[in-house]
């Protein structure tokens, strides 16, 4: 089901100051997609999610879920959360400690007065779906973090909600479990035809899970796009910087040649992905560390071949992180761990024009 958010703002008042948690947000979340709200803490992503689910009330605007208006300042409509028919997985999972797994999962059906035998059947199905069958009688306090996460998911899904919302559901798990659970979640959601809204500050999670990502900052949505679009082809410097590690270099547009935009920068003349920028205008060149390719000997000219000196080299396991000085600029580069390089070496490297992004200042 589609979610439409129009002109939603939310203010907090603290010590005489007004904080705009949401600043005139307009957003359409398409039906049956996994849609992620990504942003640093304090960017308003959780507030937006809580407005959708009804736990917070915006100060302005309108929210529609499907064809129903669930919140409208103008029309004075405010549907309480329990009437919105959504499912939500909380950051803390919010598994009720005084109930066992069955009662936790059955709760949404029990409060809707569903007949007992139907409840039993639906709970069993849902627990099977999240691979927790046989755990019905387990007290909630005897569940591991990963199991709690699945029970929370089962509880959110059991009443067949129109939309399921996730508020940083993996942030309470340790790194290894987080990775496994992320894959599982992707698999679970892939099997369902459901609109999912996912809030996270973890860019890897966002990239791995989403169909679309909306990047937020200071209560505003900066950019929306598919994970690949956001990663490779971001329009905003903030987005390019936030979604992955990036070398950001000041550049001036010099030419438009053969489908590429050519800039002059501290690195010299660089051929970049095409952007509609006026010749002579200022832009920021964004190069991700993993797209800096060391070449042995002398590479072919013409494809952004550069020379520099390795200033520092740190072994981080799966790669070397090198700082390469080119003129006045210093570039962070990710180099194969089997490369035989030392600090102080002169190196040549290439930058693929497809991965040289020009973003707005």
């Amino acid at each position, binding site marked *: 089901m589609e979610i439409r958010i129009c002109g939603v703002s939310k203010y907090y008042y603290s010590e005489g100051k007004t904080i705009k948690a949401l600043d005139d947000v307009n957003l359409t979340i398409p039906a049956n997609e996994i849609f992620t709200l990504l942003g640093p803490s304090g960017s308003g992503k959780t507030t937006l999610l809580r407005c959708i689910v009804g736990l917070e009330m915006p100060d302005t605007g309108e929210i529609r879920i499907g064809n129903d208006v669930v919140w409208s300042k103008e029309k004075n409509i405010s549907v309480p*959360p*329990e009437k919105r028919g959504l499912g*939500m997985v909380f*950051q803390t999972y919010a598994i009720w400690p005084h109930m066992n797994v069955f009662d936790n999962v059955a709760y949404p059906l029990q409060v809707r007065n569903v007949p007992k035998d139907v409840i039993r059947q639906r709970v069993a199905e849902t627990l099977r779906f999240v691979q927790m069958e046989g755990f019905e009688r387990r007290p909630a306090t005897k569940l591991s973090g990963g199991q709690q996460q699945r029970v929370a998911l089962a509880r959110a899904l059991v009443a067949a909600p129109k939309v399921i919302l996730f508020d940083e559901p993996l942030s309470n798990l340790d790194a290894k479990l987080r990775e496994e659970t992320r894959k599982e979640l992707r698999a679970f959601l892939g099997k369902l035809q459901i609109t999912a809204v996912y809030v996270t500050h973890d860019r890897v999670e966002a990239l791995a899970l989403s169909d679309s990502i909306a990047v937020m900052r200071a209560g505003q949505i900066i950019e929306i796009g598919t994970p690949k679009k956001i990663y490779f082809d971001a329009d905003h410097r903030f987005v390019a910087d936030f979604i992955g590690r990036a070398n950001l270099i000041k550049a001036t547009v010099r030419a438009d040649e053969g489908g590429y935009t050519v800039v002059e920068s501290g690195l010299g003349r660089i051929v970049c992905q095409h952007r509609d920028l006026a010749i002579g205008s200022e832009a920021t060149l964004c190069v991700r560390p993993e797209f800096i390719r060391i070449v042995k000997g002398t590479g072919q000219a013409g494809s952004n071949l550069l020379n520099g000196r390795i200033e520092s080299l740190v072994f981080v396991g799966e790669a070397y992180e090198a700082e390469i000085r080119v003129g006045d600029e210093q570039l962070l580069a990710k180099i194969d761990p089997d490369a035989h390089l030392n600090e102080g070496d002169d190196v040549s490297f290439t930058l693929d024009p497809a991965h040289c992004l020009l973003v707005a200042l």
Partner: protein
Amino acid sequence: MDPARARLTWLLIAIVGALTVCPVLMLVLGSFSEGLTAFGHFTTDKYVQAYTDPAFLEVIYNTAVFVLGTSLLSTLLALFLAYLNTRTDIPFKFLFKVISIIPMMIPHLLFAVSWALLLNPSNGLINLGLKEAFGLGNAPLNIYSLWGMILVEGLLELPIAYLIIAPAMASFDVALEESSRVCGAGTWRTLIRVTLPVLRPAILAAFTLGMVRSLASFAVPSMIGMPGRVNVLATYLYEMIATGFATDYGKAAAVGMSVLVASVTLIVIYRALTAESERFVTISSRGFRPSVIQLGKARMPLFGLVGLLSFTLIVLPVAVLLYTSLVPYSMVPSARAFAMMDLRHWIGVLGDPISLLALKNSLFLAVVGATLGVILSIFVAYVIVKVKTRAAGMLESLSYLSFSFPGIVIGIGFMWFFVQTPLYATIWALLLGYIATYLPYGIRPMSSAFIQIHSHLEESSLVCGASPLTTMRRIIVPLLIPGIVSGWILMASMFVRELTLSVVLSRPGTEVLAVQILRFAEDGLWGKLSALGIVMIAISTTLVVVATLVGNRFKVA
């Protein structure tokens, strides 16, 4: 905030406001009035009368010595015990937990009675024993004096002071002490220069609370002070309103005003101090172990002291009462005394219609009062913890206001109020008074229970489609059960023993246990008093045991 919560908040402000502000207003009004039943014209006569009375000066002096002495004694003892428990290798540390909890189950009135039975000059057991042993003509010790009051009240306030100081001492970062040691200061110097200054807010908080409590205390002054003609403000007020003396509620209200102001001021200081002490305490989350000081040769003598203290606080009062309830008249324990034991006092009490009525009333007040009090506390605590609006803050201040009200003063305020209503001289007057005065004791455990319930638990229920009421019933209340149970016990056991408010509001027909015990003491019926006292302790203890069992059953693992 949504309208339902706002409405609930204002409803609670109205209820709690009526309960706490109304007696204060009536007290103020009463202090400027001519008489209890007819307010008459505005007059300051009562103030003039009250504060120019020559006896008043002596009362103030006694009160100051009593309050300061008591707080000093209890704070020093608590400091000593807390230090022994948290920092030394003293054996049997469980005793400290016992010291800090059990005495709360023994009503102050009975504790005072047991000391009177031991040390009163005419037939106190210890005095009789000393006279026999040394062939003395006069009793060597007299509990009916200012020092006697300080001793007994100080022991009674010890658990509260300990409960404030011990956690502060246990949780402070030992690195502060260790760095002092590394800098070259010895154990003693470190204690003086680092430990005590860091604990200063907690120590002052314990001292201030001791002052508030001893200022409001009525049990010890009435049981130990009045027989020796040592009046403090509480008993001075009591004599103004007690039947049998020349009652003057207006003058009592005028004197009560200054007690109330003093008490409220002290509580404001206390709350500032506790806020400061929370800031001072530096709990390091790393699993630290305070360095334990080896007591060496002093270990056993110090333990002996702690043992003696626990014996005095817990075993002695019950033993003395039990013994007195069984012997026909005061006599030193001996073979003859044990041979003469019988149940005459027990039979007397259990056949006494007024004692039985008092028992029935007290049980009713405990069960109904605690239940109503807890229900009100649940809603108030919910609003205080979960609804963070300005109105909720107002409710919080209102609901903790009565914490600073001395029972007897607020009783006088309620008297001025109830006299205008049909509730006067009914059990409902006592019920309302109890709930109003002891509301903070119900709210406290309930708010800490609410704080432990993460708001996500509640919100996820709403998102699952449950209405706020269903959420309350199925999620919040079950999670609150441990808090509800402990709040209920606390209130019920306080109501069973309630004295200070009851002595003002109780009338023929609405006697309660503590008032009946006071009457027995005034008549010198020590045997009957002891029997009824044991009944009171038994009820308190049963309440705690039953409630603990119920609480365990519902305990969230």
